[in-house]
């Protein structure tokens, strides 16, 4: 309780800090910035007063802005990269509403703009460790099987690394795969992969943009240690009906968007499905014919402007993977999310958003062979209520505050079988928990070139009854098991998470920044396989499992270069200390393990590194070059005699280059080159014989390295010239994944040499080598 009062006190303090109103009468200009052609919100658009140097603001996530200025006559200028800058003369004697609709393209028609972010914005704001990917930007980046993928593109940025070849898992600044909070229109997505991770769950047709926070997370975000990946779905065109689609090697896509009422409301529906299983039907083998292997996903969104003060949104996602083998085996898994949002303006300076969010991930496995028929079910489900306020006391300050409550229901895999089955049913060990948080965050332009963001997040996690929980000795043996009743608070952890960021603009073109952030995580993913497996297990913080905590400090230098500011350079360095990290005892089997806490080990970790990013966002040639030098280590008493060892995601060097060249209006070419140090792994240090089989002898954990990784992908896009008066446009995208054909080690196994039984050998498996693809895209 004491803590809550402190928080309240802080809110008041921050409000007072905004200063008493000055004598001169002040007026508030507020409104929205939208794309004139589609009605999409232009979040991040810059609004400035031409006559008042340094007075300006940015449109928020819903395109809303508010600016408080002394009464007077002004020119309001609204700009956004890729759109024609608009100026409007305003005689501001009283507060007024100003809505802007920007036309795409503008005077820069000849230049191809691939980013939606002004390069200047990164210089002036205190926020650091943030990267944004615009969907237009990734459209031309070559990818595996030609399937556009925001998550795969994300891993081309410094500090963000793919968990492995063909994996949708990624690690950020030395964190684990489960330490990323992936939000789709605010709903957490628990398993962001399709088909073992070869594809991510995000259909790029439905997505507007993606923002990733690698450090210095704003206080409104919490729940994971490493990063927040905030993915926003398109709102849908509120001007006219449009459709788009694509036919690719693996999947086909279709999207439809249009107005519900012109200018007031719109909808978007997208669908995607793979068709590998259609080829299975052509097989001569009856077992293959009766097998299934597919995934699909559906995205839907609708929004409606009720009046100038109220707007409502609905977004939904449904995705499913299915694998089936004859009638003997079937597995399906997928995510479902739904978000209901209500934007409300309490006044022209107080913006509110209320969200009710549902999120679920589940899998089901059905086996029917011989006399062993059984089903394994598992799910993780959230109900989430979130309230956010944005208050703009003056043109130099923004105050954000709000709260959130999430009710988690987690059912680890359990077996159901009838009495005739050769398999016994197992107990349903569903557990319940409540995660709550309150936050306040204050953006303050203390001086024209000095910005501060100060935030505090108070998070609490409560394990709820009913449930049975055990205590363990140091070796993992159960000491006692206790049953708890329904609706009881069994154990509550309360944590304070301070967040702080500051930026100092050195001159027009450069700035330095520093930040500190503490993050807490209460859901933990247990996975011990290379590939992301749909049966990976989520466990909550409990009596034994403590909340994971990360403290990160970072500092950075930002600069725009070139005559037209066409280049931007970012250098960031960070140090992260991790507490209450999880690992497993040797030989732990996670699947079908009903007492998984007995197998857990608790330790600490540290990660540090430096990241360089040079971007070019305008001109014929666009793209970026990213390089990361980093280390990520863990420390457990039970592993490697308690010494620090490299975590699996530790990669010393990591380089990626992305280039897109627009040759002419018809043709553009692209290339991606990545190379990095191999992952830390454990190779044998000896061998011996058991029962006539050669067995590897292992020494220290992660003391070896996979061979270095290297890949070049190439792509070309042909856009059919526009025909006057026709709305139908089409394009072809061609790509080659791993064009150099380098055999990158996916795994290395050690075995007896079949040609010489007196020897052993190391065999490397490589997955993808020279994979061409072609995709046909259209829109109307």
């Amino acid at each position: 309780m004491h803590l809550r009062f402190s928080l309240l006190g802080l809110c008041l303090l921050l409000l007072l800090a905004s200063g008493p109103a000055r004598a001169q009468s002040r007026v508030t200009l507020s409104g929205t910035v939208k794309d004139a052609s589609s009605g999409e919100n232009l979040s991040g658009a810059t609004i400035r007063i031409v006559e008042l140097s340094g007075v300006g603001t940015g449109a928020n996530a819903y395109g809303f802005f508010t600016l408080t200025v002394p009464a007077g006559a002004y020119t309001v200028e609204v700009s956004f990269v890729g759109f024609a800058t608009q100026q409007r003369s305003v005689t501001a004697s009283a507060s007024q509403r100003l809505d802007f609709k920007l036309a795409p393209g503008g005077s820069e028609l000849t230049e191809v703009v691939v980013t939606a972010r002004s390069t200047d914005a990164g210089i002036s704001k205190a926020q650091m460790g943030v990267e944004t990917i615009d969907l237009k930007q990734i459209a031309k980046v070559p990818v595996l099987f030609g399937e556009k993928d925001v998550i795969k593109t994300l891993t081309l940025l410094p500090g963000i690394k793919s968990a492995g070849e063909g994996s949708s898992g990624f690690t950020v600044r030395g964190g684990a795969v489960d330490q990323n909070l992936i939000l789709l229109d605010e709903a957490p997505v628990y398993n962001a992969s399709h088909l073992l991770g070869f594809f991510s769950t995000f259909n790029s047709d439905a997505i507007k943009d993606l923002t990733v926070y690698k450090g210095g997370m704003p206080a409104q975000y919490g729940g994971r240690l490493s990063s927040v990946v905030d993915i926003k779905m398109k709102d849908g065109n509120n001007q006219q009906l449009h459709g788009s689609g694509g036919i690719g090697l693996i999947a086909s896509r279709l999207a439809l968007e249009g107005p519900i009422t012109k200018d007031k409301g719109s909808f978007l529906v997208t669908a995607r499905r793979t068709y590998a299983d259609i080829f299975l039907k052509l097989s001569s083998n009856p077992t293959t014919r009766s097998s299934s292997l597919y995934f699909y996903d559906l995205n839907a969104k609708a929004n409606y402007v009720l009046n100038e003060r109220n707007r409502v949104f609905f977004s939904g996602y449904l995705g499913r993977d299915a694998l089936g083998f004859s009638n003997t085996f079937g597995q399906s898994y997928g995510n479902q999310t739904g978000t209901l949002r209500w934007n409300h303006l309490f006044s022209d300076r107080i913006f509110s958003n209320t969200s009710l969010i549902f999120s679920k991930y589940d899998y089901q496995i059905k086996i029917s062979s011989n006399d062993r028929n059984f089903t394994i079910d598992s799910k993780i489900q959230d109900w989430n209520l979130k309230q956010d306020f944005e208050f703009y006391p003056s043109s130099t300050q923004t105050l954000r505050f709000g709260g959130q409550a999430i009710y988690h229901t987690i059912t680890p895999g359990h077996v159901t079988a009838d009495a005739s089955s050769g398999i016994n049913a197992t107990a349903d060990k569903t557990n319940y928990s409540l995660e709550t948080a309150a936050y306040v965050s204050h953006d303050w332009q203390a001086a024209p070139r000095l910005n501060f963001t100060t935030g505090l997040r108070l998070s609490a996690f409560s394990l709820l009854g009913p449930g049975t929980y055990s205590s363990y000795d140091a070796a993992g043996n159960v000491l006692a098991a206790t049953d708890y009743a329904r609706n009881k608070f069994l154990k509550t952890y309360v944590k304070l998470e301070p967040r702080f960021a500051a930026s100092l603009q050195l001159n027009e073109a450069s700035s330095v920044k520093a930040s500190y952030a503490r993050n807490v995580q209460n859901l933990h993913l247990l996975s011990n396989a290379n590939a992301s497996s749909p049966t990976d297990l989520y466990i909550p913080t409990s009596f034994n499992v403590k909340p994971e905590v990360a403290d990160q400090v970072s500092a950075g230098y930002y600069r725009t270069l070139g005559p037209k500011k066409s280049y931007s350079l970012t250098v960031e360095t960070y140090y992260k200390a991790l507490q209450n990290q999880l690992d497993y005892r040797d030989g732990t089997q996670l699947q079908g393990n009903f007492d998984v806490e007995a197998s857990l080990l608790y330790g600490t970790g540290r990660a540090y590194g430096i990241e360089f990013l040079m971007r070019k966002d305008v001109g014929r040639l666009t793209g970026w070059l990213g390089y990361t030098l980093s280390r990520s280590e863990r420390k457990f008493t039970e592993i490697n005699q308690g010494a620090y060892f490299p975590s699996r995601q530790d990669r010393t060097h990591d380089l990626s280059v992305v280039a897109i060249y627009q040759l002419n209006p018809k043709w553009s070419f692209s290339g991606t080159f990545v190379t990095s140090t191999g992952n830390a792994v454990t190779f044998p240090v000896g061998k011996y014989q058991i029962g006539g089989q050669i067995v590897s002898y292992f020494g220290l954990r992660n003391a070896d390295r996979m061979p270095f990784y290297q890949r070049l992908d190439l792509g070309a896009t042909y856009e059919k010239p526009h025909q006057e008066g026709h709305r139908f446009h089409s394009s072809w995208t061609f790509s080659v994944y791993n064009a150099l054909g380098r055999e990158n080690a996916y795994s290395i196994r050690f075995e007896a040499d079949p040609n010489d039984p007196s020897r052993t050998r190391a065999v490397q498996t490589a997955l993808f080598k020279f994979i061409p693809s072609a995709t046909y895209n259209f829109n109307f």
Partner: protein
Amino acid sequence: MPRLNTQLLLAAAAVLLAGTGCEKTIDLKLNTSDSQLVIEGNLADDGQPCQVSLNRSLNYAETNNFPAVSGATVTLTDDTGARETLREASPGQYRGTTIRGVAGHAYTLRVETGGTAYVAVSTLPVVVPFDALRTAPGIFDTKSIQAVVEYTDPIGEGNSYLFRQYRNGRLNKTFFIQNDKFTDGKRVSQSLRNMGGGGTADDLDKLASGDSLRVEMQNIDPNVYEYFRTLNQILQNNPAFSTTPANPKSNFSGGALGYFSAHSSRVRRLRIP
């Protein structure tokens, strides 16, 4: 066990997707280690005395001539107070004479060599009858033939099994293990194919019509099951599911590799139709 089925299919899907996947032998410079003592001790209820083999590990790049450990003092005791010292029948191979394996009794094997003692205890479990042996077509490859074992698991968790399969008198080196975690008290009819770990894809796996098939069913104690389960984890080595590898959980104290198992032995034979 439900896990293995899942993995098989996921692996199949991975292979399907990775049509262009390829394998090659590579040269790796591996770290070396001090030579480790490896103990394999078995005492069955088949009337034969205890057999223990002692040898040492090698560095990975060396030829597979695992040095035998001679001159060790190997003693076996049981929970009735009986005690014997095993004699070295051939270099590194030690044999008992008097003590026989009897269900329900605990046996302690002590190996002393190079000034260090290594001790393991194993209890010969209650014997579960080996009801039947038959063959059935494989689930994934319906043309293949698999051995199917049948038994009724006694009520009460902890029963653990190890099956050894011989084709035309030759041992398939795969350790087919099973326990009753999901099948406690059930009549079990289990194809050996899905339980395996390690082994090689040589002809010992490929049963054919006309073969003589022999399967030995061992009741093993839960610690020995844990040993073979963790051993199989590193022998399986499925690329998509390779976990962080670790040495198997030995039941020997003192840091030796290997195991000591007091187990039952029941054998069934058939000629594959």
